[in-house]
């Protein structure tokens, strides 16, 4: 133990001596200085006159954005692939097997570079952008999509949506009570979906459709208007999602296979239809097996998003750990900040997944 403390004291002493020798001080004052570099994708207001701290915040948001989108796409794709892998359609399950094996045995960095390369080299210039229904434009500078613009009165639709959700929840609780008391089953899912979609739609139409889509248009040199997604963001998002979905598919498969065959047979013996068996009996049990490894895949995806630096997506490593570090020469401070930010990302995700895991865990009596 004493050895360990001696070791720490020794390396800290070394660091102090080295910093002194280089004439550097250990302080975080540089965060207030102007960053004087541009960032190609900013979710908040940012100019090159903004401070390093602001640049750091932009980086954090960019990392969070790609991680969030990636987690959602990877989960959806992973569940679909995992279920197809188990289906009794031989051809589809083989194809998915090949996809999974190929995807997870190739480094994620290669996926990112490959997809980015394809986007930059094979998509046309913005001038000849491929248009999908005159709404979506694919070009090597990015993908342009229509942007929603909310006019006055859209608030009514939002309010109607909120009321519909609450009404659906109340109805669900009431239907469950009725089912427990009398055994009468209402088509809860259909009615809830109907209410949640229908009510806001009616209000939307009555209040005079207060929503306009701003379409991207072909300008003189470039596409203008709409939302532009950078090829860097798209490549990173798609590559991380594909890569992680292959792992999630295997997790889902093993989770479903871990459920005893007797559960299928028991549910069948009770007369539950096959597609309801999956929903009512198998998935709730499989989730318990699936959630813990799924959480670590989410963590991996978030950490892998740091590879953004290889294609120039400005995430946290590229902003504060890259350009800021180069400009200010504050290796120690910037690296400590980056490490702490990733640690807190990891802690937040694992705290959330632990909470969810506890909620669905088997309550043993």
């Amino acid at each position, binding site marked *: 133990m004493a050895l360990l403390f001696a070791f720490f004291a020794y390396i800290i002493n070394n660091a102090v001596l080295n910093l002194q020798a280089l004439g550097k001080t250990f302080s975080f004052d540089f965060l207030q200085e102007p960053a004087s570099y541009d960032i190609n994708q900013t979710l908040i207001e940012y100019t090159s006159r903004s401070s390093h701290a602001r640049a750091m915040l932009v980086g954090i948001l960019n990392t969070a954005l790609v991680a969030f989108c990636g987690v959602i796409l990877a989960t959806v794709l992973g569940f679909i692939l995992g279920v197809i892998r188990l289906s009794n359609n031989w051809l589809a399950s083989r*194809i998915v097997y090949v996809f999974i094996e190929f995807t997870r045995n190739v480094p994620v960095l290669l996926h990112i570079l490959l997809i980015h*390369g394809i986007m930059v080299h094979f998509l046309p210039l913005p001038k000849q952008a491929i248009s999908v229904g005159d709404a979506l434009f694919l070009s090597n500078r990015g993908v342009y999509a229509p942007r929603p613009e909310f006019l006055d009165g859209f608030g009514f639709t939002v309010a109607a949506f909120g009321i519909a959700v609450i009404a659906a929840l109340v109805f669900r609780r009431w239907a469950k009570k009725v089912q427990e008391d009398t055994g009468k089953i209402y088509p809860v899912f259909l009615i809830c979906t109907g209410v949640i979609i229908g009510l806001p739609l009616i209000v939307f139409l009555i209040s005079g459709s207060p929503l306009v889509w701003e379409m991207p248009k072909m300008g003189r040199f470039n596409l203008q208007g709409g939302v532009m997604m950078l090829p860097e963001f798209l490549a990173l998002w798609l590559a991380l999602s594909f890569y992680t979905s292959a792992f999630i598919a295997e997790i889902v498969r093993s989770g479903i296979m871990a459920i005893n065959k007797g559960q299928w047979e028991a549910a069948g013996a009770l007369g539950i239809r096959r597609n309801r068996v999956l929903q009512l009996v198998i998935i709730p049990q499989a989730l318990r097996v699936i959630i813990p490894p799924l959480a670590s895949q989410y963590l991996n995806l978030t950490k892998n998003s740091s590879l953004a630096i290889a294609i120039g997506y400005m995430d946290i490593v590229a902003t504060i750990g890259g350009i800021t570090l180069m400009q200010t020469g504050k290796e120690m401070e910037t690296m400590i900040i980056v490490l702490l930010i990733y640690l807190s990302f990891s802690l937040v995700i694992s705290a959330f997944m632990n909470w969810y895991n506890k909620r669905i865990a088997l309550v043993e009596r």
Partner: protein
Amino acid sequence: MTPGLVNAYEPGEHPDWPAPSSVKGPMHWIKTNLFGSVTNTLLTLLTIYLLYKIIPAMVDWMFIDAAYTGTSRKDCEAQASGACWAFIGTRLQLFIYGFYPEAERWRVNLTAVLLVVALAPVLYDNVPHRGKALIFTVLYPLIAGVLLVGGIFGLEYVATDQFGGLMLNVIIGVTGIAFSLPIGICLALGRQSHLPVLRIVCVAFIEFIRGVPLITLLFVAAVMLSYFVPPGTNFDLLVRMLIMVTLFASGYMAEVIRGGLQAIPKGQYEAADSMGLKYWQSMRLIILPQALKIAIPGIVNTFIALYKDTTLVIVIGRLDILGIGRSSLADSKWQGLSTEVYVFVAIFFFISCFLMSRYSLYLEKKLHTGH
């Protein structure tokens, strides 16, 4: 069946006829496995359509319409409109050895051959003279280091920044794998220890390593680690990278092994205690052999992940096989061939990682002693 045929056979003489084609045979197989229900049929048709769209185009690009010879991209384009494999062919040496001096490349080859010799007794247990061979395996890292770097025994000194290509991937991968296993075991045991300080240090280390991405650790190795050594000392970037990669892998290894340790019933620990074994004896003889066996799939997965992660060294400016490919694209003669390079590297990684995962399946089967 006609009534006249019913008594055509003596009792007990009726031949065994094959099952009707509606329950057996290829037609039945196709019917149940591909067109069992409406959704199934739709799925099959969709898959066939996708295959029809993708496979011919891919085969065409990769093989039929590909150019295998030539000295520039123009040559390739003159021959065929598909892939330009001549690019990979002319640079194969670079892909394998990086910038290692040409006259000294026999040393890399020798190291690779010796690696196979060193690995054989670890991977298969029916190797002749296994005991002696294992001593060689233990000494191997030292021999490999001397061979590759040189500077003594009349071998010419080769600076480590000339290492590159596939060679660099293998060096980092093998070092990480070899050293992370023992460190991981120590960390896992430390995490289960009764000494609170030791436990806290191990937990903090493991959680820290697992909480940050490898590339930030590589950045730390590149820009920050030199602050923590005595002033004036300067140690090699490759060594710093190897240390970081090893520490990174051991954090993950520790968790995998902890899983194995937790799967061992308490009775095994108690039985070892009641035999009068000391802590290390009981670990070495009873607990670890069982725990490691359970942890094999996880250990191999960690190895595969580490091996794939060796490509990340390009973010701190070292050119591994992927980095070499990427930097070759800057050559004006060959510009715009990124797909070829990435496909080549992807196939290479796929083959090596797939073989590793197959080996893990083989090992699991071999060690499966249950019923």
